[in-house]
């Protein structure tokens, strides 16, 4: 696996710039009698070049917070800032654009698009953003796959890759648009120990090289211990 070459428009080296901030986030899920107050006034900050672990028991609101931070969901109350810009109250179009430009996601179950090759999966966010030429996109996608150790498997369909390899493709895809924030929901939750370590190493190394804020939700205490900051949640609040 090689280091990721810098690309046009890439963020600078790791610094202390605030990439993500949320204040007093509230979120209810469910309806009627089943309605649950999942997040009860959560505030959080993430700086570039830092790796944050959010830990806590199942159902405490970790993933809900992550989806709110990634603008995949809307808070009932509170505010989310992405690179200094309040995004929580914006319309769907602006929030989608912000996701494409500033946020990369890695999910527990990889969520690769199975009809596409590893290379095409990585190209997908770049093609939407359209910042690079087609040749530059392909070169960047290939170098990202090289960086995650899949340089030999760029043209394999997602279905022809192992779980660990799929997760590495997902990391390469999350980094494709040079986001300032990388959000990972149990990125090692579905992997064996060897692959868990490999994926965590990759995530943190590439993110630090690119100066990204990494926020990961995990149940794995070993993984959490290796992060720069650990935030513990219980019953919808940080403790």
């Amino acid at each position, binding site marked *: 696996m090689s280091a990721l070459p810098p690309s046009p428009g890439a963020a600078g080296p790791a610094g202390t710039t605030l990439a993500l901030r949320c204040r007093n986030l509230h979120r209810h899920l469910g309806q009627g009698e089943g309605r649950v107050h999942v997040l009860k006034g959560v505030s959080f900050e993430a700086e570039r070049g830092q790796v944050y672990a959010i830990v806590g028991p199942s159902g405490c609101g970790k*993933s809900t917070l992550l989806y709110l931070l990634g603008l995949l*969901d809307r808070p009932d109350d509170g505010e989310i800032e992405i690179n200094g810009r309040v995004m929580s109250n914006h319309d*769907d179009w602006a929030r989608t654009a912000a996701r*494409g430009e500033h*946020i990369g996601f890695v999910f527990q179950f990889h969520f690769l698009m*199975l*009809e596409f090759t590893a290379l095409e999966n990585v190209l*997908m966010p770049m093609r*939407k953003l359209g910042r690079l030429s087609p040749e530059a996109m392909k070169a960047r996608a290939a170098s990202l796959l090289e960086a995650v150790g899949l340089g030999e498997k760029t043209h394999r369909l997602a279905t022809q890759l192992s779980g660990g390899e799929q997760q590495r493709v997902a990391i390469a895809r999350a980094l494709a648009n040079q986001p300032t924030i990388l959000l990972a929901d149990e990125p090692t939750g579905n992997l064996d120990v060897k692959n868990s370590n490999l994926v965590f190493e990759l995530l943190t190394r590439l993110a630090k090289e690119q100066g990204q804020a990494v926020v990961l939700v995990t149940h794995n205490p070993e993984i959490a211990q290796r992060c720069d900051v650990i935030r513990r949640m219980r019953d919808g609040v940080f403790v």
Partner: protein
Amino acid sequence: MSPNLRIAYRFLTAKKRAMFMSLSCTVLGVGLFIVTQATTSGFEQFFTKTILGINGAIRIEDKIQDTMRSMAAAGGGDSHFSRRDGVKYIEGVEEPQALMEAVRTFSNVRGVSAVVRGNVQITSAFKTEDAQVFGVRLEDHIRVSDLAEQITSGELEDYRQSPNGALVGRVLADRLQLAVGDSFVVATRGASRRVHVSAIFETGYREVDKTNVYLHLAEVRSLLKRPSGATYLQISLFDPGRAPEDAFRMEQVLRHSVKPWQEREKTWLAVFRALRISTGITVTVFTLIASLAMFNTLAMIVLEKTKDIAILRSMGYERRDITQVFLWQAGIVLAIGAVIGAIFGAAVTWLVGQVPLPINGIFKTDHFIVTWELNHYLAAIATAVVMVMVASLIPARRAARLEPGDIVRGTAQ
């Protein structure tokens, strides 16, 4: 290739069986639309051509009575009064030559022929039959009918050269056992003429072929003792579709009853219209099935691709991108289905055109009649586009409405 089109193509090709079903339904919808249109309008157009070839596009007959004085002036001779729709008519055309000159000034008029008609009895060596005799000037009449093309035996030239030559309908000739060159007697009101068969014609319209005999105009005038006037004027048009408008203007200007072929043949045209509606319903069902198949395929893909939708949305793909991805899928099926459906429709239309089908009554044919019109293909494709795209819009919009947060949480509805 745009990212959305690329994704649509992959989604679709990954569901080969469902895509094949949608494609088959679209091909069938487009193809059968074309075939039904080609066959329905084939018979209608052939009937129209037959009718125009016999009776022309417009017929001018009775004069409209304007005043009491004109009624009195027209009181003598063979003229009769009739009253239709509150308007009085004097039967026949009194001054055909002047009227013909006036008719020729209409830009859409291709030809006009004065016809004197009378009921007669035809006696051959074998038997006697009732018939209708038509006195025409051949050169005028072949410009307003397909008489020249309807000759099945004998020569038109012989008729042209022989003052006592006759053109006899095929059915009448068979009944009287007349052949080209045979002579027969035409009789009416105590007068009779011996003429000979110059040629036998067949229009395919049985009533015409059973009763009609064409003689030279002078011969009929003499036989019917009608030295002037005409029973009607037969008119052919460059654009027969405009006959109602031209007929209306002619009636206003010429003050005669003027009937376009659409009014004359309205019973048969109504039958064809009913047939068209009936096949239209069938065709609509075909395209409805095609659109339902497309709806089903897309709805299935939306259900199976919710996680992919969430991924796309998380990567910055907008709601309209998701809509486009699914509409593109419908578009791809439509494009392929339209091309194959048009080829399929053309092939089946050709095959149907080869099917033997002897018909003799309102027209004569020995095989299935089809028409080849670009409009049928365009209409079939346009119908498929509307139906399939409308059916695709629902699953496409549903896909776009999915909230990525709900999907990754597993609570998407």
